[in-house]
């Protein structure tokens, strides 16, 4: 009997057995790898959120970045309220303004202060013709015995706050002019991100053009261009940004953009030149050159698409550093002018009142850190996803 197992198989059947290798395109492959990277995905979500926050956020806010309410200055996001009989609740701000609030935490009004007894540390405020006495002696003592304020209204003294509520009027609190912090941080996002994106694009354009020309021309041109890059590289650039800002002396958005955009392209130029030198020797570029295709066309048709990967990574990393530099400039007083504010300006403004109103510093700082973190995660992820060395299987 013939053993069927020992029949020859025909070649068509064999072909189907042969391993078909997944052949994905570069970008699909990169995306697939990026999706697997948890941190990168967190970064992507973070970047999306922060952009939405800046772009869409302000539409949902009842305030604009410059709306002031001088009754409600420096109100924190959470505070302790004291019941005044059945007539409502009050809260004493750190500036000793007594604010009438609802039980839910909406700010209703600032009460008029009728008397200040600085010696006994008792201030008197008037509400509907009745006096409210606020005794804040304990607040200033080292050992307050667990009591912060004593609020006396209609002869009843409450020594303990009724509860702690969240500020419903200004969710992230208000600043020293009574402007809504959340709204300002949202507008700050617009400014910081606009500066970062546009400056990065300006850097990109300069850097790519410079690097591509240097790499393609080669020879003496390349030598001179790279010498210039070397010189620029050996200068502490922050100083030049500062000098330029002082020189232009105009606190507009464009000043910062132009300044940042014109200084930090060197890394990009080097990167592109390196890539170009590598690619230049490759056949299709040689072929394009021999049939007389113009340089501009070679740059746009061949080199740029092929150097996209590293450029994208460099850009992702450049954006947070632009946010950072902008914040730094604002922080030393060279930021966009009032009433607009970037995150750096907000942080700078908050510095003076740090010990009393720390929340004013925390929110813009958190926004900066969140943005930097998200872009860094995304950039790291992109770097490994687009790394040509990993492009196997």
């Amino acid at each position, binding site marked *: 009997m013939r*053993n069927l197992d*020992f*029949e*020859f*198989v025909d070649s068509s059947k064999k072909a189907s057995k*042969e*391993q078909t290798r997944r052949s994905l395109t570069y970008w699909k492959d990169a995306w697939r790898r990026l999706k697997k990277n948890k941190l990168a995905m967190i970064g992507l979500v973070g970047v999306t959120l922060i952009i939405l926050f800046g772009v869409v956020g302000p539409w949902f806010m009842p305030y604009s970045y410059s709306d002031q309410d001088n009754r409600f200055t420096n109100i924190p996001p959470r505070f302790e309220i004291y019941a005044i009989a059945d007539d409502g609740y009050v809260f004493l701000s750190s500036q000793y303004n007594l604010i009438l609030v609802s039980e839910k935490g909406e700010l209703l009004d600032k009460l008029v202060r009728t008397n200040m007894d600085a010696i006994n540390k008792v201030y008197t405020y008037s509400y509907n013709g009745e006096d409210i006495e606020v005794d804040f002696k304990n607040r200033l003592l080292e050992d307050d015995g667990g009591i912060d304020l004593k609020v006396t209204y209609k002869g009843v003294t409450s020594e303990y706050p009724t509860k702690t509520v969240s500020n419903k009027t200004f969710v992230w609190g208000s600043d020293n002019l009574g402007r809504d912090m959340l709204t300002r941080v949202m507008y700050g996002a617009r400014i910081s991100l606009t500066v970062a994106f546009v400056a990065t694009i300006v850097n990109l354009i300069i850097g790519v053009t410079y690097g591509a020309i240097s790499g393609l021309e080669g020879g003496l041109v390349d030598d001179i261009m790279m010498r210039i890059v070397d010189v620029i590289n050996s200068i502490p650039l922050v100083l030049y940004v500062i000098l330029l800002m002082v020189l232009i002396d105009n606190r507009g958005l464009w000043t910062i953009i132009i300044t940042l955009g014109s200084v930090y392209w060197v890394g990009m130029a080097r990167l592109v030149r390196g890539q170009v030198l590598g690619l230049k020797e490759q056949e299709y570029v040689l072929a394009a050159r021999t049939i007389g295709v113009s340089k501009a066309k070679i740059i746009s048709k061949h080199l740029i698409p092929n150097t996209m990967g590293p450029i994208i990574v460099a850009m992702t990393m450049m954006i947070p550093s632009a946010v950072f530099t902008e914040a730094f400039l604002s922080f030393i007083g060279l930021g966009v002018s009032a009433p607009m504010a970037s995150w750096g300006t907000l942080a700078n403004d908050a510095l003076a009142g740090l010990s009393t109103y720390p929340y004013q510093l925390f929110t813009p700082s958190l926004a900066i850190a969140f943005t930097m973190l998200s872009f860094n995660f995304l950039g790291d992820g992109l770097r490994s996803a687009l790394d040509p060395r990993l492009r196997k*299987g």
Partner: protein
Amino acid sequence: MSKILEVKNLRTTFFTHLGEVQAVRGISFDLDEGGILGIVGESGSGKSVTSLSIMGLVDDPGRIVEGEILFEGTDLTKLDQREMTKFRGNEISMIFQDPMTSINPAFTVGNQLREVIMAHSDLNKEQAHERALELLRMVGIPDPESRIKNYPYQFSGGMRQRALIAMAIANNPKLLIADEPTTALDVTIQAQILELMRDLKDKIQSSIILITHDLGVISEICDKVIVMYGGMIMEKADINSLFANPQHPYTRGLLLSIPTNVTGKKKRLVPIEGSPPDLMDPPSGCPFSPRCPHAMEICLKKAAPLFKISETQEASCWLHHKDAPEVKGFVKVEGDLS
């Protein structure tokens, strides 16, 4: 003749995040004391992973998942890293494929040589220096007194490989594994290094495993040979049987793809049509079946056992089964060993 090395059913797998790469899939072979064993096979067939498994140097995420490696009776797979260091560079040493990257660029050649010598002996620094000079002379580096102070970047590729060979033989190893010691070098340098290996083979009295793509080299130096494919052994034979009477379709393909004049100019192997299997998801049957001109139904289902052709030759191919169709040149042997 006693065995210096016995590898039994060795299975080494890389647990990558994309899946398991079964680089070595249950191979067994042994090496006689003083013997020279060649391993051939195309790229990715698991030759390096086999030798690294013996050295206990399989990198993460790889692991020996099964099998024994008996070196003079000691099972190396049972030893921890600390115990292995007593063997490595001392009783067993290894020469790697790429001399450009295998030598540390940050230290002088002398420094690295002395270090190996002193790690496994009681010699002091001066004695180790003398020994290092002697070794450099042995491997044919001219002017060793001044060369010993050089950094690797001052050495050419061929000289680096000589220096690495010097390190490998520094402590008179009982087993020397050379993993494609010439592949990364120029053709003329290749010949010189092989000449050196041949020369040393008589001087140092080690048993040697020589891994290569080049059947020509095997035929000149080795006395036994293993043909690997897809992480498995396809054929195991002494040199004469293999060249005179290959008993596996893959071996035949290999022999056909080298220039007829074996002793003539050596060329890198011209691969057989098709590509090697993906070890991530290896074919269930004979790994060679997708490319084999004689593939049968059973080949797709089940890998063939090693059929014993003669005292000196075994082949893993169903064509040796009594039920298989006749194919010219392939002998039938009794008994299905599976």
